[in-house]
């Protein structure tokens, strides 16, 4: 089997095999449908109302993309400041750790009350939960910039923004992409859960929550599957971006 064929066939075999085992396990162990719905039922539910799930998937995708973009933009600014000043780094680090370790599900009700629910709450939660991870990634990447190159720029009196733009930001891109993969999962979870808590009727999380409350296992599992598809699409987009922006990096060379 040629490597290009193998790259397509192997994941398909893995996914189909996993689906068959899942289907068999539900039948053999007679698992309750709310605990685990067989894949065949999920597929038929999605096939019954593809437009409904698609439109809500788009909404959740937008929440996630906007939240992650805001988070990344703020993280680049904060990360650049942290990388350029030891004092700022040491002052900011404990705050980031505090945000990172505090369970966000515990204070989401306060955020709903503060922002009055809806899209602002969801976007805020996605951005807020992924912000520390992004910032640590950006700082790590920026600090990894070649010290000899930093010295070289200093030898011609490069301004801080020139050092940021010409050296630190490009040097941090590999680290930003690695963090983005992790933050995607975090952001998707935050978007799904926040949609279910933010007094909104749109988005996979809102539908999933309603389905849970009204004992609709098929709908709940269809939203879970849609969220998984959304995550995979997100990872593919990240990989394509990474391939085009980091062609110079060792990770992108065969």
């Amino acid at each position: 089997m040629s490597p290009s064929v193998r790259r397509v066939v192997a994941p398909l075999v893995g996914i189909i095999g996993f689906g068959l085992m899942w289907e068999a396990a539900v039948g053999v162990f007679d698992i309750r449908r709310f605990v685990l719905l067989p894949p065949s039922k999920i597929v038929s539910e999605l096939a019954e109302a593809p437009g409904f799930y698609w439109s809500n998937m788009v909404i959740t995708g937008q929440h996630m993309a906007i939240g992650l973009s805001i988070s990344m933009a703020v993280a680049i600014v904060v990360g650049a400041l942290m990388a350029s000043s030891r004092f700022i780094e040491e002052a900011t680090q404990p705050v980031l750790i505090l945000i990172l370790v505090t369970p966000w599900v515990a204070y989401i009700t306060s955020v709903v009350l503060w922002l009055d629910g809806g899209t602002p709450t969801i976007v805020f939660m996605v951005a807020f939960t992924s912000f520390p991870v992004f910032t640590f990634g950006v700082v790590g990447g920026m600090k990894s910039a070649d010290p000899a190159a930093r010295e070289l720029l200093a030898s011609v009196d490069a301004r801080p923004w020139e050092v940021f733009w010409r050296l630190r930001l490009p040097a941090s891109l590999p680290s930003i992409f690695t963090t983005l993969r992790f933050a995607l999962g975090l952001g998707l979870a935050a978007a799904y859960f926040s949609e279910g808590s933010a007094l909104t009727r749109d988005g996979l999380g809102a539908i999933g929550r309603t389905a849970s409350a009204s004992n609709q296992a098929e709908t709940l599992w269809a939203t879970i599957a849609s969220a998984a598809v959304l995550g995979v699409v997100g990872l593919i987009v990240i990989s394509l971006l990474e391939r085009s922006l980091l062609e110079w990096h060792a990770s992108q060379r065969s």
Partner: protein
Amino acid sequence: MIRVHAAGHNGAREQPEVIGAAQVRSHPVPPRIEARGVSKSFGSLDALAPLDLSVAEGETVTLLGPSGCGKTTLLRMIAGLEQPTSGDIVVNGMSPDEARRLKQIGFVPQSPALLPWRTVESNARLLLDINRRASPTTPSASVDDLLDEVGLGDFLDAYPHELSGGMQQRVGLVRAFAIDAPILLMDEPFAALDEMTRTDMRHLLGRLCEPLGTTVLFVTHSIPEATFLSDRVAVMSPRPGSITEDITIDLPRPRRPELEDTQQFFHTTTRLRAALSTGMRR
């Protein structure tokens, strides 16, 4: 033939005047680089004892000494990248910080420090793109011509990872030359290269520097490198470093690779080795 380097305006590049049959460089005043009573301590560690150093316009001076004797520290202070604990440094008639601001210094670090996301041409242009107000409006040579000169004309669009160590360091040299700085500070630029490439690189550097009359302060451990490139060699003692001997290298210019096979070259390297050993014992 005699090459005379006329004193000129700050930052201007001058061609040497050819006036005779013998090949000697004259050293007009004022010096391009002057360090007076410069010392450096890191906490309780004395890295450099107070020393004086003067480099005339168009002169190539090498700092030669054992590891840890403060050669790089001295070079970094002259480049304005480190502050001396005591003493004064004047670079091209101004403070090192001012010289940096006006891009009077072409710095070549030990590693090529190429940015992996920029192509060869873009890397060679890097210092022109930074602090643009101080960049020459009409550089004496285009970056592409310089890259051609060092044999990289066919690699303009290549990325650093596609180049050998020697090729990467050649890009580093072009990057320093591209800004037309009157002073080049080189911190063991060929240290990481194999012996054959290293030899080629010093010949290339000699070929690039000689017609331009650039003032060069060069740091190395290599005696043949110091001999081939320098007008003078300042031999340094171990930490706290000081200049124990200032040796004039009276080999003819222009210097060609064949020079290294001559008796005169051999005698000079022997003399430097002896001076280095004496310095080590101090």
